[in-house]
């Protein structure tokens, strides 16, 4: 566990970020959007070679997208989660695919499709799961699946389906 403390102290002193310990092997850090690449490169150097997951949370009331990067270190057995907020109107962020390779590339491609976040520097952001989809990115909070399904697939005059409109 001393190694974890080392990472904690050197990380927070180098980049001026507050690192929160949630429980054993779980660290959380909120960072600025502009520092993302520097911090990512530094963390990878320190052994966080595995990008476990990349996720986007749509905080529609704040008008922000929150990106979370879950990084695992195989040497120290610690997971650190980087969180950064970007504007919801113009969701652009630098790609980390130069640091974590194809692993990051494919995660970013998924998030681009489902949330519409643009990752600058990612070579391939073509559609992944959705075929012939031209509407808004469907995982955004203001996209209501139920309304969409009602309009697109259900018929109000159909006896069996009219119940969905009550």
């Amino acid at each position, binding site marked *: 566990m001393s190694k974890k403390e080392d990472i904690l102290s050197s990380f927070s002193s180098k980049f001026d970020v507050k690192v929160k310990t949630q429980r054993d092997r779980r660290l959380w850090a909120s960072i600025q959007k502009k520092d993302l690449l520097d911090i990512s490169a530094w963390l990878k150097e320190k052994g966080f070679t595995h990008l*476990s997951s990349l996720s986007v949370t749509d905080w529609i009331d704040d008008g922000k997208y929150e990106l979370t990067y879950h990084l695992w270190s195989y040497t120290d057995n610690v997971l650190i989660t980087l969180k950064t907020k970007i504007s919801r109107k113009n969701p652009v962020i630098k790609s980390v695919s130069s640091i974590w390779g194809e692993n990051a590339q494919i995660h970013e491609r998924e998030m681009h499709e489902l949330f519409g976040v643009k990752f600058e520097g990612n070579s391939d952001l073509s559609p992944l799961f959705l075929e012939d989809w031209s509407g808004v990115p469907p995982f955004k909070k203001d996209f209501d699946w139920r309304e969409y399904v009602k309009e697109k697939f259900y018929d109000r005059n159909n006896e069996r389906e009219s119940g969905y409109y009550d």
Partner: protein
Amino acid sequence: MLKKNSMIEITRGSLDTMTNQIKKSTDNEYDLYFGPAHPGSGNFSVKLRVEGEQIISARADPGYLHRGFEKLMEYRLPIQNAVLSDRICILESLNWNLAHAEAVDELMGIEVPPRAKYIRVLMAELSRIQSHIIWYGVLSIGLGFDTGFKMAFAYRDYILDLFELITGGRVYPAGYICPGGVRKDIPKGAKGRILKVLDKINEMIELEKLENPSLTSRTKGVGVLSIKDAIRLGATGPVLRASGMKTDVRRDDPYEIYDELDFEIPVRKEGDAYARYLIGIEEIKESIKILKQVLSRLPDGDFIDSSFRKPKLSAKMPIGDVYIRNEIARGEAGIYMVSNGGNSPYRCKIRGPSFLHMIPVLEYLLKGAQIADVPAIYWSLNICPADMDR
């Protein structure tokens, strides 16, 4: 029936011009689709650019099973999501049940009773064994070794019988591992039956030891993944261990009671399809070891947290977020759950191991391979289109 005069006569000369035209237009390259109509590909296809027998490039085409569970979970209560989580991967529903339940437990700060923890691990390991048996089965049939497939599915049925006995469902446990513990206690007599089934599984592994040449000759040296590439491409679980990395979430990031259990992490250095297949067989043996320990130590007590004994429909989740990592049969499962204080999760990101194994890893391994090696590479990765698409 075709009439004689309607048949197109192809003369030797016209055939030559036709083939010449095809050659010219494609420059001897063509596209070959592996799946989604392939009998074993699952709901997934990979487009291969082929020159002769050699694959120049591969492009995965996922999305045939995209059900949008992550978004669907935002509309539903945790008790409903537990049932949904079965469907993330059909072949190991209990493992995904566990990952989902752990995320809710941690968000809500529920202390799971010890007996529930043991039952959870028991079910997760049984699920791992049956998933690895399917892996062995589909790899065998992909390589034309029909006996292996039939043997695997026959022995898997013994475990499905156990699932039916304990959870009520053979494939889908309908949220048996739910927030707070497990839905019901294991019935009397289940312990003896589990031990009997484990003997059966041992029997299968003994049979498998015959090392059929049709399996070994087509997997040795095929689809070699170096450890450096494996990490860069995001490989986890058995695929990463077959490339020489000694890592296992159960050991490195223990959850439930895994830190109290004694088991080995099988590792191989070769990184080829054969190594991955051997890792699968070794892991079945380790899971049997874990199950025997769990059964001998199974404590008495409650199987579910008392506040969850009656299903609560409006249990507000405190504001916060958690990231859960679990070792499932296919690799690392992750669930990132965010709550804004409502009844349902605000966001639930599911990280399936096959998402990386089926897109970057598969594309990388297929590049430069022969068409005949596609099945060996494809099924040796132990993939599941369901947890990729979610």
